[in-house]
């Protein structure tokens, strides 16, 4: 679809000063009062006209800092220029050279910490939220492509006859699969659940990332020839050794699925659950349609979520959609230190989520049937910065009080999934359970075995998982064609200029 010629005609000739004057294009959203009663996506998307106007805000910098800020180095001014000119298919092409899952990343990347944090427009306005809306434009292009119907299939490649196993169908694994199938290898993804997508599917809620988008990506990979083996738990259904033996190369992308608990009294009361359990029931098992679907989810009038990241925001907002009258975030640090995306905090506030910052549970209390009735919270103050550079929260003695609640969700983080490492001692891991890899190649301690994403980084981000996937795929391809393992990194140096 091509949009208004007025915008188009003017676009090319605009002066920087004119561009700077254009206000950020606000993406329309569902009304907060309405959207808490449905699970439909909150942002409604740009129209082509809106996207083209937003694209005009980009200065097409000679030295684009935004590219530096992007973990996978997307040619951001390149795709924005194409949008400005109304040439969306070129835009898609530019975008997809570096990002295989733009519809996902446009929606869930922490742009305010990456590309938009360094964009000169944001700097000029002294406000990163006023930067070029790079994420929204990315989402627009990806959605435009999907709405066109079929994705273009790349030309047939000669089959190499090399067999590759990908363990885990999250963003890291899917990225490796997509790249390696294009190099002509025989790729099989082993996934523990009955569907692929990883956290994109069972964690991030429908209202933030419609599952149909994830499914489109998986279907596309299948069309390219990637094979999927579902309900296959590597390390259980088959020993890891056997998968390694039977394949020419293996990629481990099993994510950070191990939920952390607070280790306070009362944590096993009824109505206390991990974010993973809450979100898996809601998303993967579609508990929001219970009893049409069979999986139930506990409901309550008041729901406390403990934590300050994206996961916590997702739980608090899901609780509202499950009918909670009060949904509270309890977080031990202050708002500036919340790791969640700005947009998530903003959306949660709009929807009426209450924030109880600088508070921390010390004990949970229950009734005689074993159900939770409240959380004893202690107030915190900020002390000196800790190892992460954030000011350390310190409990204020004697400030304890009870906050009543029907449900409490623990969203204080996840650790690397121990299943594969624990059944495969040859694989070296850190003391916190992350698989140790060569950062450039993703090589593990076992020849032929690569790893990336949250299993290496601990709970991180989609784009980092994807970046890991891309780097590993290149290294795997070189390994498969050359057979060299010990100095694989040097081999990659040759094509370094082309890749970050």
């Amino acid at each position, binding site marked *: 679809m091509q949009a208004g010629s007025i915008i188009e005609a003017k676009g090319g000739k605009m002066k920087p000063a004119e561009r700077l004057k254009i206000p950020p294009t606000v993406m329309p959203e569902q009304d907060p009062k309405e959207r808490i009663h449905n699970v439909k996506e909150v942002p409604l998307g740009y129209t082509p006209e809106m996207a083209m106007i937003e694209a005009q805000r980009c200065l097409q910098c000679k030295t684009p800092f935004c590219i530096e800020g992007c973990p996978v180095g997307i040619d951001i001014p390149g795709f924005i220029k194409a949008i400005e000119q109304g040439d969306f298919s070129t835009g898609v092409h530019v975008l997809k050279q570096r990002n295989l899952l733009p519809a996902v990343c446009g929606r869930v990347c922490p742009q305010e910490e990456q590309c938009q944090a360094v964009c000169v427009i944001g700097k000029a306005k002294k406000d990163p939220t006023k930067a070029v809306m790079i994420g929204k434009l990315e989402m627009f292009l990806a959605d435009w492509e999907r709405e066109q119907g079929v994705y273009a299939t790349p030309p047939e490649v000669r089959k190499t006859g090399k067999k590759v196993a990908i363990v885990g169908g999250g963003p890291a694994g899917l990225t490796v699969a997509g790249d390696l199938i294009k190099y002509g290898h025989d790729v099989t993804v082993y996934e523990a659940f009955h569907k692929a997508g990883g956290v994109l599917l069972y964690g991030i809620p429908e209202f933030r990332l419609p599952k149909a988008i994830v499914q489109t990506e998986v279907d596309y990979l299948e069309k390219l020839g990637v094979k999927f083996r579902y309900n296959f738990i590597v390390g259980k259904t088959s020993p890891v050794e056997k998968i390694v033996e039977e394949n020419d190369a293996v990629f481990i992308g099993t994510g950070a699925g191990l939920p952390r608990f607070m280790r306070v009294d009362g944590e096993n009361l009824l109505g206390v659950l*991990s974010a993973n359990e809450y979100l898996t029931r809601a998303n993967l098992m579609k508990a929001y349609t219970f009893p049409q679907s069979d999986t139930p989810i506990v409901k309550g009038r008041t729901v406390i979520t403990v934590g300050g990241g994206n996961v916590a925001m997702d739980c608090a907002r899901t609780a509202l959609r499950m009918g909670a009258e009060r949904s509270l975030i309890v977080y031990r640090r202050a708002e500036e230190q919340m790791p969640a995306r700005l947009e998530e905090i903003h959306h949660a506030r709009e929807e009426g989520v209450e924030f109880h910052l600088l508070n921390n549970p010390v004990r949970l209390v229950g009734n005689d049937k074993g159900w939770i009735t409240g959380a004893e919270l202690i107030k915190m103050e900020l002390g000196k910065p800790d190892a992460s550079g954030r000011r350390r929260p310190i409990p204020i003695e004697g400030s304890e009080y009870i906050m009543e609640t029907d449900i409490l969700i623990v969203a204080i983080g996840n650790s690397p999934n121990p299943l594969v490492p624990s059944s495969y001692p040859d694989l070296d891991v850190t003391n916190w359970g992350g698989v140790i890899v060569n950062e450039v190649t993703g090589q593990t301690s076992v020849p032929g075995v690569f790893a990336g994403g949250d299993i290496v980084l601990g709970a991180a981000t989609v784009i980092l998982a994807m970046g890991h996937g891309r780097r590993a795929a290149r290294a795997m391809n070189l390994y498969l064609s050359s057979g060299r393992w010990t100095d694989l990194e040097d081999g990659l140096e040759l094509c370094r200029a082309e890749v970050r």
Partner: protein
Amino acid sequence: MHVILYKETLGPDITLYRLYAPDVAAYRKPGQFVLMRISEEGERIPITLADVDRDEGSITLIIQSVGKTTLQLAQMEVGDSIPDIAGPLGEPTHIEKVGHVLCVGGGIGTAPLYPVAKAMKEIGNRVTSVLGARSENLLILEDRMRDVSDDLIITTDDGSKGNKGLVTDAISKLVENGGKFDQCICMGPPIMMKFVCILTKKLGIPTIVSLNPIMVDGTGMCGGCRVTVGGKIKFACVDGPEFDGHEVDFDEMMARLNTYKSYERVALEHYSEETGCRLEASLKQKGAK
């Protein structure tokens, strides 16, 4: 897709299924279980692998109809397919030659007990089994258990078969009569496991139990199955399902099993309305429990 190859009714509401699932069968060891989902909108339910046949690529499950999913499954026939079966999951039973093993099964618990008793026998242990049920018609796998046991004692609550009374009465009597046991393995309703453990602790018999908390993923990702064992949180799906029975907090586990009671009833009512299926009897039975 997993085709139902064979189906047999073992008792009221208790059905044995043999299903085509070669991936699951390939590396399964006694004590492990699967998570299955019988329809697109279905729940994931955990079921013990009672047996496998690697040549046929099949697994055997023995399932008691207690709610929506298990009742719906009972309506399926040979030739029908089940979309998702994931496994084998959980840590296998530690099978070791220890001498004299006491195998105690209650109700449907005899299904997971059978493969363990069989393995214990095969490795050279003497096996004495005690099977308990409310009534004769609820006893399952008696013949198979007899095949792998040196001695087999049956107890029923109502005295309709074997000794009238509880399995704990039978265990006490065995020990009074000079029985010496190096190991007890107990699988059945939580309340039964709790009282068997109280008894065997007093008698000084190390006891393994197999726990059945509510599960979602079965791979250690949700913590829904957490139980307290020896004062520590354990995830039954990856750390278990078998644990040292003397260390398990049974009261907490039994309370946690009630988390979804009211929802389970809704699911069942919704199902019976939808299918017009006559489930009043089962509903009543559920209510009575």
